[in-house]
């Protein structure tokens, strides 16, 4: 009933291959974007903006990057936090060392830096696959964090190794308040998500999926494995790099290697798996779940039990429940949140009539 597509005819190729073929989706997306741009920043308080929405958007962007590599191109990689670190430090050094560089350009270039590093660490993917590749990419994680720690130049020889991110200045304006930062992040994430969606449905994405499904067959059909795999690594690392720079500049406000540990890499991996491999929507839903569920549980337990129950017990319980939720969810819906949404849509199409 709500999702009826009767009467919507696609009469041209352009109409058939557009981003959101259903009118309901187009309207929904327009409403969501309108709310996100014009309503949310004025309704949400500083806590929601700076502690929930900004990190969620940023991690969704990183998860999209990871999803491109893992979900679309089928290359199991564990180094996303390392590429985030590259982006963060590149952005810091670009702004520090090049006088008057625009923030957006620095952000773009830091993504490029991460992409270059990603290509280097993507080279083993030409020879090894699957879990073995994951182990090989693990090296990037450790190497990058080690190199950033080891060479003082990256950190401008700061003795503590923690650098304060410069303010975000664009068009002569300092984007300092949570609301302004939220707009910056939203704009960049929206633009890059659109680009990802476009790549995924176009020839680039189809090449990735062909390599994912069977690389020998893809090669036989004339795809260059070298090009396709390295392209996936480069684009994925670009997303991670931009995400890392935003994470440091718009969220943490500090740049330090230990913020980008293997722990974060794993969490991004889980975001992609829980959200749904090979879907853009899944990256957003997965990032929301992994990032916000522990926070929600913590708030809930403190509200529900207050000081009546020992906080050590509730803190441990939160972790247990979070773990159980992941397991239960993966048993019931191994294809992730994105699949759940798809099923809901199909139900809504028929509801309230069963046939």
């Amino acid at each position, binding site marked *: 009933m709500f999702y009826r597509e009767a009467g919507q005819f696609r009469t041209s190729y352009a109409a058939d291959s557009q981003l959101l073929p259903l009118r309901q989706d187009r309207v929904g997306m327009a409403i969501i974007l309108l709310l996100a741009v014009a309503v949310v920043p004025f309704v949400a*308080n*500083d*806590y929601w903006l*700076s*502690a*929930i929405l900004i*990190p969620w958007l940023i991690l969704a962007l990183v998860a999209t990057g990871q999803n491109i590599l893992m979900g679309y191109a089928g290359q199991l990689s564990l180094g996303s936090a390392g590429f985030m670190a590259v982006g963060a430090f590149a952005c810091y050094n670009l702004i520090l060392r090049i006088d008057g560089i625009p923030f957006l350009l620095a952000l773009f270039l830091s993504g490029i830096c991460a992409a270059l590093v990603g290509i280097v660490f993507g080279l083993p993917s030409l020879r090894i696959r699957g879990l073995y590749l994951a182990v090989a990419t693990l090296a990037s994680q*450790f190497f990058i964090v*080690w190199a950033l*720690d080891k060479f003082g130049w990256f950190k401008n020889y700061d*003795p*503590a*190794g*923690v650098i*304060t991110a410069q303010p975000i200045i664009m068009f002569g304006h300092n984007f300092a308040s949570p609301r302004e930062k939220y707009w910056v992040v939203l704009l960049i994430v929206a633009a890059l998500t659109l680009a990802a969606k476009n790549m995924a449905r176009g020839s680039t994405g189809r090449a990735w999926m062909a390599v994912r499904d069977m690389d020998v067959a893809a090669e036989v059909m004339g795809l260059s494995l070298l090009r396709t795999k390295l392209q996936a690594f480069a684009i994925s690392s670009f997303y991670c790099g931009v995400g890392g720079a935003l994470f440091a500049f718009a*969220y*943490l*406000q*500090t740049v*330090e290697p*230990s*913020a980008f*540990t293997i722990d974060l890499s794993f969490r991004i991996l889980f975001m992609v798996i829980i959200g749904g491999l090979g879907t853009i929507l899944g990256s957003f839903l997965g990032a929301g779940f992994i990032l916000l569920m*522990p*926070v929600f549980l*913590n*708030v809930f337990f*403190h509200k529900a039990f207050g000081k009546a129950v*020992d*906080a*050590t*017990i509730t*803190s*441990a319980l*939160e*972790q247990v429940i979070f773990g159980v939720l992941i397991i239960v969810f993966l048993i019931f819906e191994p294809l992730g949140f994105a699949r759940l949404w798809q099923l809901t849509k199909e139900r809504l199409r028929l509801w309230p009539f069963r046939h």
Partner: protein
Amino acid sequence: MMIDTILRRAMPGIFALGAAFAVATASSAAMAQEQEQYFGIPSSRVGPYSAMGTGYYGGIIDYLNYVNMKHGGVNGVKLTYDECETEYNAARTVECYQRLLNKGDQKMVVFDTLGTPGAYAVIGRMAPDNVVLAQYGYGRTDAADGRVWPWVFNAAGHYWGQIAVKMNFMAQKEGGIDKMKGKTIVHLHIDTAYGREPIPAMREIAKEWGVKLIEIAVPPPGLEQQSQWLQIRREKADWVTFWGAGSGMNSTAITTAARVGFPREKMMYVTFGGAEEDMIPAGDAAKGTYVAANAAPGKFPLIQDIEKVVYGAGKGNMQNPQRVGTVYYNRGVGAAVMWVEAMKNAQRIHNKVGKTVTGAEFRDGYEALDVTDDKLKEIGILGMSAPFKMSCAKHDGSERFRMMQWDGKQFQLLTDWVPAPNPAFIRKLIEESAEKYAKENNLPIRQCS
């Protein structure tokens, strides 16, 4: 007809609900009449650093409750708190900071992350938000310069002062600073900002004394240190200054040292690795390890009174009451004492005795802290915390530490509160570093005097 029946049946329920609601609002309105001061507690109770978090924040919460139960609050102002779990993670600490910042119409006045990574992540938010960052012996060292960092304090000493005290202690053991020439010191540290924090001061002192300094990093979480300790043997180190975090890493260092045969009497632990929870897992191997303390363990009069008043009433925060009086717990109590004393100062300075204070007022109170031996005795913690006095420019407190040694069962206090041998030198380093930071970030330098 049907709706009528439903309504009629539901009527008593609706009335009861309404009445309950009215009573609830009335009572909460009555409660709002009472003055309250709200504190945010960003605790870390799970993960590898849980021993630290449970002890420290347990001590803080117990003392806040103690002040309420024993004295009816601070000049009649009840102390309340809200807790948030950070998991000792910088990103979660930012989330907690934002969550705790506002509660109803009250705003948090002081934040204590118990961890250098978290402190660095929020340090830039203090001035715009009017919140005091109270670093109890950890965190950004050059924040001790109050001209650049008006909102950040280092009241229980910082890592540069601590390393100076430790190196001085070594020199004493060796028979004088002139005997240190040609000796080798290994700084074995966790590979994070916290582990590297003492290095600038250490390098300077080593250069001056003619000591060979070797820095060896252990990647977190530091549960595997075999190769590092073999390297220490190879270098024939005379002393090891150990900068670890989490009881797993800290006890592993001792057991690995024992395995390669490095004497524990030549190891010096940092304040945040030198607690009972770090020594006990290592068993007998831990015997002889030196530790620097900014809060001494023991049942001081105040701790005994907390046991009587708070635990006697069954309101204690520690899951294991045996841990009351241990290093981390006492450190938490010491931190909370500073909060409460700062609040008293704020009320006095701003003529608000018996009233809630704001962040700016609290900051003035914190800066006016002058904790003498007499004051410590009055509170009941003489010997547990060092006496100290702060000022506009000087945001580090005592700069004094007590050295203690683990005897296999508990810590034996070896010295009284010893200051750094050359405080002017450490101060110079701090001011240089802070001025460099101010210049890089276009911060104004406050005029003090």
